[in-house]
């Protein structure tokens, strides 16, 4: 059972279309990060959200953290071929007392392909 469910797993769209990727959990996260990964490379951080209801924008990318800090979404407006890649959400579980040592729980990833 995946603690952080990411959907869809695959997304193939045409240039100019909009898309949304979702990450959902029944657990509460103290923070949630979105990474992008290209073939042959490691994931690279796009954004970190820490406050319930927080919205962050990075050019054509909009990230939202759910009010209850159990879910997050990534919306891309007017997708471009350069957006093609693997998108990963990763959360740091909120805990009562002990430290999580920065451990992250990753979603399964969304492979996005944007066709010219």
């Amino acid at each position, binding site marked *: 059972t*995946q603690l*952080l469910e*990411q959907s869809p*797993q695959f997304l193939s769209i045409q240039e100019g279309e909009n898309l949304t990727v979702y990450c959902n959990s029944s657990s509460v996260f*103290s*923070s949630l*990060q979105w990474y992008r990964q290209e073939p*042959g*490379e*490691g*994931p*690279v*951080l796009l954004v*970190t959200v*820490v406050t319930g209801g927080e919205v962050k924008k990075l050019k054509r990318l909009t990230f939202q953290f759910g009010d209850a800090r159990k879910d997050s979404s990534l919306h891309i407006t007017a997708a471009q071929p350069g957006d093609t890649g693997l998108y*990963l959400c*990763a959360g*740091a579980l909120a805990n009562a007392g002990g430290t999580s*040592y*920065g*451990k*992250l729980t*990753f*979603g*399964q*990833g969304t492979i996005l392909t944007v066709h010219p």
Partner: protein
Amino acid sequence: NAGVTQTPKFRVLKTGQSMTLLCAQDMNHEYMYWYRQDPGMGLRLIHYSVGEGTTAKGEVPDGYNVSRLKKQNFLLGLESAAPSQTSVYFCAIRAGGSAQPQHFGDGTRLSIL
């Protein structure tokens, strides 16, 4: 990726062989992590370290051992490789403080025949 170097980049092993993957950092971060990445499963934490001389188990530690004798290096060992350990292995580092991101190396692609 600047700051995190993984060696080797590729390796093919036969079942039962042993090997060690090296992760080296030049950012003086306390936290280091080893993940494996398999299709459709995201990244899963194998072991991690919160400082020199310390190690701890992650989500999928069986079949792996680690050591952090020096702060800048985190080694991942496979004592007796199995085909189920065919994967791409990533090392990550992280500075202290809440909500800090992890910085990843470029991975080691390991195939066990």
